[in-house]
């Protein structure tokens, strides 16, 4: 019994080491979305391209889609834009845009110049829908299933690696479950 107590500090150190080691490489700025498993919050906002046309959550019914939160004021959104173009054009992914706290004219110029990867763009100048989605920065990308339920949230830039390693597996899983 006494022998065992001699080894206690070693045991404590090893356990502590394992716990701390598991935390290495984890990005503490990435938070789980409270919305995973919940339907997209109800909203009624204008279409970015067609002022006056109202969009609502029925936009997310029928197929698995990405919801990408972006703004022209967001430098990282510029970084991921070319990869979103690639996703939409080459991979045939349907991406709904949420133009977040932006100016309509700036947003339209941006899409005109850089190309438009979005099937639809929700115009959210006040960030109301963004707030209800728990968006705390841009870019953020959500995987929404065919019933309009949020299945995954990715904080930060989407690129080919994120697509291959993270988003595509989630989408495949969501599609399998129907």
């Amino acid at each position: 019994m006494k022998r065992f107590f001699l080894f206690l500090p070693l045991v404590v150190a090893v356990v502590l080491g394992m716990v701390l080691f598991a935390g290495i490489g984890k990005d503490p700025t990435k938070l789980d979305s409270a919305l995973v498993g919940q339907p997209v919050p109800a909203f009624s906002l204008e279409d970015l391209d067609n002022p006056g046309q109202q969009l609502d959550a029925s936009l997310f019914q029928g197929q698995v889609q990405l919801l990408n939160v972006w703004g022209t004021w967001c430098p990282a959104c510029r970084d991921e834009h070319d990869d979103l173009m690639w996703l939409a054009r080459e991979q045939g992914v349907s991406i709904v845009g949420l133009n977040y706290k932006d100016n309509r004219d700036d947003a339209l110029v941006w899409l005109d110049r850089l190309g438009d990867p979005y099937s639809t763009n929700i115009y959210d100048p006040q960030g109301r829908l963004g707030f209800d989605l728990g968006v705390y920065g841009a870019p953020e990308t959500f995987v929404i299933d065919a019933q309009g339920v949020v299945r995954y949230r990715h904080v930060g830039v989407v690129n080919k690696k994120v697509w291959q390693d993270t988003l595509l597996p989630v989408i495949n899983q969501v599609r399998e479950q129907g």
Partner: protein
Amino acid sequence: MVRMLSVLLLVLLSPLAQAEVANVYEFDTAEQEQRFQDLIVELRCPKCQNQNIADSNAPISKDMRAEVYRRMRAGASNDEIVDALVARFGEFILYKPQVEKRTILLWATPAIAVLGGLLVVAGVVLRARRRQTEPEPALNAKEQARAAKILAEDDRDSNA
């Protein structure tokens, strides 16, 4: 020198940055304002992570303060306001996590640590007391001879 001046400026201006929050919103009574202040101090900014939304200048903190104010005006209770924000941003925004299965260890850790410490102290005290009550048995002749031999060997070793 320039650095010192800029630090000084920062220190002098920081009360202004905090005062900004209070002036944006209007309250009917001092209690209401106090309630608002207490609420926003309790909530953590999801973007900056080590600031509460009262101190943070991040856009999301501004939005969260506005939401707290809006809901307060609409007559929501503190719990309702906090729950509404947690539903959007997750439990991360609570400095004090709710007591539930997942967080029970976190809440129990101080008690466990105190209990562990008390056990160690009790153990040490009991052992010391036992040692005091039973005096160490004296060596018999054979043991004394062996001890002397060992000590002699030890001396020789250190002299060599």
